[in-house]
């Protein structure tokens, strides 16, 4: 049990700075998710917390200890790797016991913890098998088990679900969340999958090019993205961004005041809809030429373009009868609109 504090943490590889000053306060028992595109530095940051990468500047503390110069084993953390990193020559039981044996934990205590973890993760039948005899999902559970038996101050997850198929991923996501809740161990979780990030996180950190774009609860990030980067990264399909230069192709109702300095107007596909006949639009109104319709089950996404070819997407419930090349008007209420300034920052 411990909080993790990062103070202006930086990382250079030669002259290139990959982590450009990150400060974070991760509360005890919190599940913090680091999310961002490939190469944004999220894995590097996690590995710096773990002690697998050096820290160029700044401090990282776990609990009350500054861990900058401590070995990974001395930081009291456990890590779950993307490729599981199970020791192939050991049985599942030996894999779980290895870290404890190295710490000279008494045998009865090791047995007790393995039994507990195996029960929680439902891997009891596989304890005497080798990793290669297990399926991907089972290996994933063993990797989790190896972290749990250590009873560390913090769990670090490095894209642990990206090698699983879609169905299993959802299932394990739920399980990780449940386990983390019940153990109440501080966790840092790295993923590039925004769905995973949204569902797992107590708080979410969006990283871009080595900097924090925004920190907040998933719903805060969804409802009030601080930048156009966050706006397009969180939510699927991503938010439509309409540059003000294209404003001749759309209209806003007279009572709506666009904040001064607005360069881009954002609206989520799920907030755009076909107006009911006879309603008066109180917000944004756009004329769209349909390019493609994606039916995803309960709803469909329509991809189209404005007259000047600016792409735009919107959601319609159920199966639609919209055809390619149809031209239609869609609208969004004014409180659903997001305004961004010329550097991409949120206005109002």
């Amino acid at each position, binding site marked *: 049990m411990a909080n993790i504090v990062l103070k202006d943490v930086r990382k250079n590889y030669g002259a290139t700075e990959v982590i450009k000053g990150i400060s974070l306060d991760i509360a005890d028992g919190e599940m913090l998710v680091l999310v961002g595109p490939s190469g944004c530095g999220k894995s590097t940051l996690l590995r710096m917390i*773990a*002690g*697998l990468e050096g820290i160029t500047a700044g401090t990282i503390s776990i609990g009350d200890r500054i861990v900058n110069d401590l*070995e*990974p*084993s001395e930081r009291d*953390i*456990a*890590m779950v*790797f*993307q*490729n599981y*990193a*199970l*020791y*192939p*020559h050991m049985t599942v039981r030996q894999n779980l016991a*290895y*870290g404890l044996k*190295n*710490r000279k934990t008494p045998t009865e205590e090791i047995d007790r913890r393995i039994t507990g973890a195996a029960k929680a993760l439902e891997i009891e039948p596989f304890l005497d098998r*080798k990793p*290669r005899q297990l399926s991907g999902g089972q290996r994933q559970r063993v990797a989790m088990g*190896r972290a749990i038996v*250590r009873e560390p101050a913090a769990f670090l997850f490095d894209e642990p679900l990206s090698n699983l198929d879609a169905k299993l991923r959802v299932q394990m996501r739920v399980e990780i969340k449940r386990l983390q809740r019940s153990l109440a161990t501080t966790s840092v979780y790295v993923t590039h999958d925004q769905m995973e990030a949204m569902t797992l996180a107590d708080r979410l950190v969006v990283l871009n090019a080595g900097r924090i774009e925004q920190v907040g609860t998933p719903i805060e990030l969804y409802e009030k993205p601080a930048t156009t980067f966050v706006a397009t990264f969180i939510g699927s399909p991503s938010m439509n961004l309409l540059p003000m230069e294209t404003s001749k192709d759309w209209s806003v109702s007279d009572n709506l005041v666009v904040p001064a300095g607005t360069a881009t107007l954002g609206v989520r596909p799920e907030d755009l809809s076909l107006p009911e006949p006879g309603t008066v639009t109180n917000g944004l109104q756009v004329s769209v030429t349909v390019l493609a319709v994606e039916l995803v089950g309960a709803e469909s996404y329509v991809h189209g373009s404005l007259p000047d070819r600016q792409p735009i997407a919107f959601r319609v419930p159920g199966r639609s009868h919209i055809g390619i090349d149809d031209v239609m008007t869609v609208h969004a209420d004014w409180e659903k609109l997001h305004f961004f300034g010329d550097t991409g920052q949120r206005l109002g």
Partner: protein
Amino acid sequence: MHTVAFPNKILPYLLLAPQIVLTIVFFFWPASQALYQSMVRQDPFGLKSSFVGLANFRNVLTDPSYIHALQVTVVFSLLTALVSMGVALLLATAADKVVRGQGFYRTLLIWPYAVAPAVAGMLWLFMFNPAMGTLAYLLRRNGVSWDPLLNGDQAMALVVVAAAWKQISYNFLFFVAGLQAIPKSLIEAASIDGARGNRRFWTIVFPLLAPTTFFLLVVNTVYAFFDTFGIIHSVTGGGPAKATETLVYKVYNDGFVNLNLGSSAAQSVILMIIVIALTAFQFRFVEKRVHYG
């Protein structure tokens, strides 16, 4: 597997022919000659020979000097394999840790493999020759009564070192490749699990190198049995008092020096059986303990 269909029936045989001809001329034909010779006794002048059945084998196997050569071979092979693999592993783990100039170190460490066995033997002979060797001089100055020409154990040590030295490069190459094949995340997981230095090496790295080690064990044993003739011939000539006479060397000595072709052929047949049995044994029992990724 992908099967290739040749349009022409003869072409595949033509393509294989060079290899098959080589195998027949340089392997099957001599081997069959050895089998035939091993059951024949020649008169001292080589004018006529008579079929004697298994008499040559009986003579060889009851000959105390043959049993002695067998013991020498076992000691020599074990020591050579152990020294060459041990040193190679040590060098490979060290080279794996080098950050700068890794290619340079590796190239230098691989060079000795290109040296011919006889030349390698001469190198060591010169260095440790009691009369003129630089290192022999150093040894004697430091109180070691170094004389491999008279002392059998020292002669054995010299040929083992010379034979192992040549093989270190080869083993080094495989160990380096083996070390690189170990996923980095496993080492990281081990370091988070609190295993460092020696403990990490023996509990994680070494078990994961097992396939490489096993392969090298087979190769090195076969090397020590067969390919070390040149080194022994140039360094000790099997002496002193046959202290370094291995089975292969005895085959040569009895056949080409003492001109007892029947006995020599019988010995080479036995040697062939020993190596087949040894390799089969290694695959049957040692390989069971090997874990392939």
